[in-house]
């Protein structure tokens, strides 16, 4: 059923990762992605894995949730691993079977690539698991705010407001869709059978009321916003100002040390 769709993946928990400034989390995520792409030997990526595993445990998000994410793209991981194993022809021959030759270098490369993908998934999931959609929206608005100096003055504000309203109305609209579908089914509508064309036609009794209801909502919301002195982004001051705390600085320092260690390992490890 439609109602089972949950929006955002936020997992409530009391951890230091949850409490970090979402802006810092987004910037650090980007940095981690870059560094994971830079390193090119197994030893470094193994070190990164241990470090990120520690961060994951620190976040208090159940490990099985990350496992679920990895499982979802397991086919891609396996495909990449096989491809790498087959194409890299360095080192000693390990497996020889029919036309397939797998060398030591290939296995090494396959493990390396798999780990790289898994790490990317884990750190991205870490951001969405530990930050509410609202926090992410605010962070994106704040990070994009320099754009206002290059002539995009209102664009950032409008985009952020659109995201806020979208987040707010997604559950309402899901509920509404569900209700309209039920009412049309009560009138004998069959919403899930027939050819593609029939299906599209069968959706009209749901889409038209949904659209008309949304337009009505939009008008009413506009009245409500104007009544509360909304006048565009000009002069608006957010109540929740994001400020960096000691935790954020610690996170930055720890990360920088980690990046440095990673680079050193990557350069000197054989």
């Amino acid at each position, binding site marked *: 059923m439609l109602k089972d769709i949950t929006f955002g993946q936020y997992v409530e928990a009391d951890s230091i990762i949850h409490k970090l400034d979402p802006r810092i989390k987004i910037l650090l995520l980007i940095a981690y992605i870059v560094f994971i792409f830079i390193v090119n030997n197994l030893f470094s990526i193994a070190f990164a894995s241990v470090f990120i595993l520690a961060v994951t445990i620190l976040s208090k998000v159940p490990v099985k949730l990350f496992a679920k994410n990895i499982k979802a793209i397991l086919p891609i991981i396996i495909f990449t691993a096989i491809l790498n194993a087959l194409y890299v022809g360095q080192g000693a021959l390990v497996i020889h079977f029919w036309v397939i030759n797998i060398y030591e270098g290939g296995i090494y490369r396959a493990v390396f690539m798999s780990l790289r993908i898994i790490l990317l998934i884990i750190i991205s999931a870490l951001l969405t698991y530990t930050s509410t*959609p609202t926090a992410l929206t605010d962070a994106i608005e704040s990070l994009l705010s320099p754009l206002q100096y290059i002539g995009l003055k209102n664009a950032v504000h409008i985009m952020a407001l659109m995201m806020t309203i979208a987040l*707010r109305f997604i559950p309402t609209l899901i509920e509404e869709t569900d209700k309209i579908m039920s009412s049309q089914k009560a009138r004998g509508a069959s919403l899930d059978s027939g050819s593609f064309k029939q299906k599209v036609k069968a959706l009209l009794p749901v889409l038209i009321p949904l659209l008309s209801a949304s337009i009505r909502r939009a008008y*009413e919301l506009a*009245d*409500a916003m104007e*009544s509360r002195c909304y006048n565009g982004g000009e002069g*608006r001051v*957010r*109540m929740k100002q994001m400020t960096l705390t000691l935790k954020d600085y610690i996170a930055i320092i720890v990360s920088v040390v980690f990046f440095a260690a990673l680079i050193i390992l990557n350069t000197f490890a054989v």
Partner: protein
Amino acid sequence: MENIIEIKNLYFSYVDTDNNGAVLDNINLDIKKGEFLCIVGHNGSGKSTLAKMLNGLLRPDKGTVCVNGIYTSDDKHLIDIRKTVGMVFQNPDNQIIASVVEEDVAFGPENLGCSPQESRRRVDQALSAVDMAEYKNTSPYKLSGGQKQRVAIAGVLAMRPQCIVFDESTAMLDPKGRKEVIATVNKLNKQGITVVLITHFMEEARFADRLCIMDNGKILKTDTPYNIFSDYELIENTGLTLPEPMKLIKALVDCGIKIDNKVFDEKDACAAIAEVLKGGAEK
């Protein structure tokens, strides 16, 4: 008493509707500072259109609406008017903007350019004024209809308005939610906020200082709730109904029974009926 809103010779019609008749037809009304004014009328009587005139969401075709000396036709001072006259609407789902209660309440102060500290103060005060402080970090989606409306009221209160217009704010609520909202409305009025309550539930009108009956875009009568309630003909002709206790008393009067008709609720009705029964028994 000083007037907060003055409406003079107001005419208005929606351009794009089929009915040629004016939606508002020569409305004259003064709303006094601190009063509790109730406007009743059936759906389509023009009461919601009138509500939107009070804070400049709509402007008169002819005539004027003046809030604290500022005309709503004055574009430069619209924000001042909306800061003074807040508005709570009918559908609780369509007036909440943010996904977190306190962020929604902050929307008004943020628009007014309040400092973060000031916004925070106003949000906390507004939420406790409507008894919703404990829900400040909740998602509005999880609240009941009555609670959502109270959040909407808090959102208006955070602008520190002098007057709040409730445009059928109880119409979509269950009896419990309706009671919660009406209790909040009464409380705010006692604290000095001018209240304009628009409704078709006559029982909500009883606490008002004055009651206007609207029909066909006109104000038919403005008087105390008691005087309006006892004008049975007027109420029937405008498609409204009396609250049940009054209906009973009216039915008894129609049967030729002499009974005190100064009745609002069940307790009053009981006292009046008991009086008659006592008289009957003594005869």
